[in-house]
């Protein structure tokens, strides 16, 4: 399995990384918090930890720590617009149910 990005997501990440001017890649992960168990982490990464799994898709390095990977392996990161709002979306095949807003989830 792996982590992948849609073309839209990859383009946006590259733009954001460029304007930020530093960083080695994008960190995806989960934290045990939120109204129904887990919450996604989406951050710029300035360094790669020894234990990180590193995926590369369309020129974007995606870093995932081993504890998080089991929850999000197979995820496709998408960039979407909903009305005026726009942002990233996790298409995560491991999710069984999520809270109403989808910000936290269970596996």
């Amino acid at each position: 399995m792996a982590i992948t990005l849609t073309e839209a997501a990859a383009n946006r990440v590259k733009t954001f990384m460029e304007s930020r001017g530093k960083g080695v890649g994008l960190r995806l992960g989960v934290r045990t918090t939120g109204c129904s168990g887990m919450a996604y982490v989406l951050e710029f990464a300035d360094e790669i930890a020894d234990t990180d799994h590193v995926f590369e898709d369309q020129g974007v390095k995606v870093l995932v720590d081993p504890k998080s990977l089991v929850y999000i392996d197979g995820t496709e990161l998408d960039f979407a617009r909903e009305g005026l709002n726009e942002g990233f979306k996790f298409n995560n095949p491991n999710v069984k149910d999520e809270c109403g807003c989808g910000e936290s989830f269970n596996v």
Partner: protein
Amino acid sequence: MALLQIAEPGQSTAPHQHRLAAGIDLGTTNSLVATVRSGVADTLPDDAGRHLLPSVVQYRAGAEPRVGREALAGAVRDPLNTIASVKRLMGRGVADVKTLGDQLPYAFVAGDSGMPRLHTVAGDVSPVEVSAEILKALKARAEASLGGDLVGVVITVPAYFDDAQRQATKDAATLAGLNVLRLLNEPTAAAVAYGLDRSAEGVIAVYDLGGGTFDISILRLQQGVFAVLATGGDTALGGDDMDRAVARWIMEQAGIGEDADHAQMRRLMRDACAAKEALTGADLVPLDVELMDGSHWQGELSRAQFDALVAPLLRKTLNTCRRTLRDSGVEIADVSEVVMVGGSTRVPCVRAAVADFFGRAPHVEIDPDRVVAVGAAIQADILAGNKPEDEMLLLDVIPLSLGIETMGGLVEKIIPRNTTIPVARAQEFTTFKDGQSAMALHVVQGERELVSDCRSLARFELRGIPPMVAGAARIRVTYQVDADGMLSVTAREQGSGVQSRIEVKPSYGLTDTEIETMLKASMDHASEDMEARRLREQQVEADRVLEALQAALVKDGEHFLEAAERAAIDAATQALVAARQGTDHRAIKRAIEAVEKASADYVERRMNANIQRMMAGHEVKDFE
């Protein structure tokens, strides 16, 4: 599911706790809202992709007011209920507004607090309420774009806005349901947008040429703090004047007389504006103007011709720059960065003239209409806690000194101008008379030495001071200015702990020209003020000496003084009373010294008697 943004390392938020923040440029003509998403700061468009929201509100009977472009359309049809340029009224009193009256078509009604209200079909509204409608529209746009409620906003205000105008802006935000993280000076925001706050130090000139106003601000950056050295400008000079110059030229070329009707003039202004904008990218634009008789005049306008037409306007702005630089006390060579703000700075000859004047290429990379909002968004993002702690917080300064009235109508400055905020400063004062139980405190703003030449902000009283001899009470007066420039004053008697406090919300404000005038007056009158201060100081000292001496004489004058001695003291006292009436502080000082000399023996005898009384019954070792 919810849409996520990329956070800085370690700054991911818990679900439903996004620290959504926005920066708002609440402008005279147009307003904007911007935010930082995935590390990028940009303005937010509406659903038709337009970033600028016209700062116009149209009130309707029995319906919600219209804001923005829809309201703008109403300006022609329904001018009395369509409020534009409300920023010019923020924090102003009825008297201030009257001086603007000629330019504004609205029906003003005086409110209870001296704040003007505008009469509309939906009832009377205050400028604060009108601004709140604009802010509500921006809030709705930001929340729709971010998918959640805003935790706070940074709103920009002109550097010359005084406390009243700042407070009015904050009130409007509160009314719109916005939490103001801080107010930020517009030129400072523009500098932040370019990341200039990250350089160590330097002098920054911000040249802001909008549609109808021109502002130049000279900022000094020192250790991450922006100080406004000077501001200058013209509230009636901008891109509209360029359009007018082009329209006049077309009229000459096409043989259109001064008798052209309204519709013809509006078409001309529109064509002129279009030609100006086209010349930003082209060297020559064709013109096709419809005349009143339905025929067309065709011609062309070259960039060189256009540059010649607007040259007088540019010279005016550069003269203002020169004056403002002189006020700020820095040389052109000291200016390390120049930032361009306002749509009219897109015009190539404006950029060239500014580059030539300052001897360096100005920053133009960020859209000049949006740069202020972008800077505010960056600041809001930091204040909302989305950045690691080492990102510095930039500070602002107070524009005029804050002081307190002391005896004789003198001003004691507690916080000098250009002090960075937030700040708290305290000073101790004491009582003037024996048994004084209350003290009146008068808070003033300004640079002059006499209260009558400064602006009165507030008065309040500290009561319940325990009876003590004059000079024994210790009253600590603390001035505190928060991050938005709001002042609160506390007075506390240190011995008994009685205290009194006031929040300063002045009823109405000063214009930028008034602030300038006040600053200038303080320099022009420096020596005069010094003389006045010396005179008042000597007068106060004379009163103190006379009062203390009289009190003593009444008590034990008979006991300690021979008739001749008493006569000498009385003569000196009378001379002092006479000198006190005059305006020569040196004469008063000499008279005080004469009284002190004449009464020296008497004072010594009293003191010895007092010491003997105190020591009676004590042995020397009690005092070791």
